[in-house]
């Protein structure tokens, strides 16, 4: 009943697949963003788990996780700004209706 690396990786896989599913099925731009966040979280979890079990005391995995969080925050900020902009232009955040750039 020891909890090992694999356990965490499985949880991360669940997170990843859940995020993927969310991205694939939501039409709301913010919903897609939520999916992306899930995927990013799963990658951080992977990094941290590997760092704990294979890292030999180096904290590289944790630091990478830190950078991913920074990246995610930045990405969320930009994405929300884009959403607001899209909403201003199209009065909706339904990605299916944001087709102005489509040929």
């Amino acid at each position: 009943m020891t909890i090992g690396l694999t356990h965490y990786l499985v949880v991360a896989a669940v997170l990843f697949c859940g995020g993927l599913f969310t991205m694939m099925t939501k039409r709301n731009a913010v919903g897609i963003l939520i999916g992306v966040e899930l995927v990013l979280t799963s990658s951080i979890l992977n990094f941290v788990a590997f760092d704990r079990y294979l890292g030999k005391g180096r904290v590289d995995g944790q630091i990478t996780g830190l950078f991913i969080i920074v990246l995610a925050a930045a990405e969320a900020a930009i994405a929300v700004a884009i959403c607001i902009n899209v909403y201003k232009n199209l009065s909706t955040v339904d990605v299916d209706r944001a087709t102005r750039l489509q040929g």
Partner: protein
Amino acid sequence: MNGHSYELALAAGVLSPLFSFWALVFLGPRMGKPIAGWFGVILGMGVPLAMAAYVLLGWLGLDAAARAQLTVNAIRLHWAYLGSVPVTIGVKLDSLTVAMFFMVTFIAFWIFFFSVGYMAGHSDEVDHQSKYHRFFAYLSLFGFSMLGLVVSSSLLFLFIFWELVGLCSYLLIGFYFDRQYATRAAMKAFITNRVGDFGFIIGLMLVYFHLHTLDLDEAARNFAAQHASGTGIFANTFALFGFALPTLMGIGLFCGAMGKSAQFPLHVWLPDAMAGPTPVSALIHAATMVAAGVYLVARVFRLMTPDALMFISTIGCLTLFLMALIAIVQTDIKKCLAYSTLSQLGYMIFGLGCGAWIAALFHLITHAFFKAMLFLGSGQVIEGCHHEQDMRKMGGLIKKMPVTGITFLIGVLAIAGFGIPGTSIGLGGFFSKDEILAVAYARAFQWDDVKKFESSHERGGEEHHSTENTPQQNGELNDPKSKVRMAKIESGEQFRLVSDEPPHKAAAASPETTEPEHSAHRMASIFAGTKPLPSWMFWLAIATAYITPFYMMRAWWMTFMGKPRDEHVHHHAHESSLMFIPLIVLAGGTLVSSYFLFRPLIADASAVASAAPMVLATDGAVHTQAISAAHHWLEYGVGFAFAIGFIFAIAIYARGLEIARRIQNLFFVWPVHALLVHKYYIDEIYDLVWVKGCLLVANICRFFDTWIVDLVFDTLAAGTERLAAFSGLVLDNHGVDGVVNGVASTSMDVSDVLRGPQTGRIRNYVLFAAGAATMIIVLLLWVGVRSATAVTP
């Protein structure tokens, strides 16, 4: 003496202008015209002045031991850590600070006061907003920065306030920012100061890197310790232009002073800075800001090596002589004063370089008084003459503005060094300049005596005293009897006051450093550069002492005496009543001449300076024998200088400008005159070297770009064009088109098929990508399972 009340008072005095600044920034427009000004006067300088007076009075009542105790006990807060080195924040409480603080606040207060009336007519509106309150906001910010600079205990904070002072000078010089010459002058001042500050930063880095601290006292202690043991910065063999690293550190720090105090190669900004309002000229460019440079050198004096001091005295000497010459030919009343300021700053720097620490600072303070008054007087004249600054159009104004004329004359007498030799009667400039010259003389001509004394001195002392303000010594200094005698004795001589003691005992009591034997060889190498002062420096300084009265009297005579040369100007001239209060007060200050107040204070503080380990031959007990002899005949020489200069000036200008015009047209004078009028063409040289140089490099690059790079590409392009034409005719039409058409029709068909999945929806693409990845993983897994089963039996 109650704890830290003096420090707190000084800190409150520093912060009050800051509060005034913010209040004026936000509430200024609502306060309206006179109220914003009075607000600035009271909070911006009135409170600091009150604090300064409180501290000064308390300080004068203390005996030396108590002062030293206060200096040592001063609070140091740890503001931040650079690595493991704490950056401290605190008030440097010693006699120099108290004297400077009082001087700055006192002069600035009266200039603020003057501005209330003066700026009412000079702050024109920009964008329907009066700039009146803005002026006082800037002045308050300036007060904050300057006072902060004075009280800073750490080089880092000194530097921060230093930069703030630079910013304020930029804002105030460019106050009339809708006039192009003002913005240009502001820019010039700022950039020139940056050049100096670059050196300052290098110096700071060296201090931090080698002395491991930015605290003034601690840096000096570490410097002395490293010097004694030959470690640290003294173990470094790096040299540049033949200067060792400790010297470079000193020169770097001095570079900052060169920028701010406008020393010779970097002096160009100060005359242009007269573009600001006249109170600004008085406050910043005469009395206080330019003093910051001198103050800095005085503060870091303990980090200076003899080589660095020689550098400093050379620069100061060049400045004082060259600028005095320019002042002779100036016709703009403010510029004439500006060049005289430059020359006097040169005196101070020269004095510091010679080791006349006390004399230089004393000169700084006396000069601040009379120069502020002169500038305010010139402001009064300019105001009265309807913004006419050309002295050639003035003349005979003494009848129209008697108060201004007389106070101006007092300033002229003071700067010329008026005094009666052999007595203690005289104005401030008389004593301070005389002292500087006496030290210079001793260093130039009595070097052997100095050396002799030094060697006997070295035998006398065994202990290395790095502590400053040893109570015993301060006790001697503060002895009321000694004050009177000190008035007659040169700066370095205070130790002679105890002449009934044997000389070696006096030396042992002084904080002078004596070197442990094991570092003797190092001493030899460091002091290899220690030489007597070149005699030409002394002669230049003496010559300038004769020139100064001449040009000052010239300016006064041209402005106030003689016949009116421009009827229009003369007709309108008037004197406004409120504004001459500051003039009279400052004239009083000049007359009573701070001598009895500031001279002992600075002499007290000089204990700090004479603790400088490297400056064996320059200050302290060393000159004792040498100077006393030189002093007397110098006193007469300088004492009569003003008379000779005045006589020449009056002889030439008494009957209008005719004689002067004839002189300047003499065949051997006019090239010199042209050189002086054009300020040695330094601005032109800078323009040629830096501005034109940049343009030249840019032009070379452009030439390379247009003629070489473009040519290559043009040739390539033409060749490609030919090739394309050929291939288009032959290959394209016949060969390629057929293929392309075939491909096109095929891809049409294919794209019809492929268009289905191309929905343009991101989620579908994600689906495809994930599906593909999944398939690959499944595939690999399958292969893996198969191979694994194949391998395992």
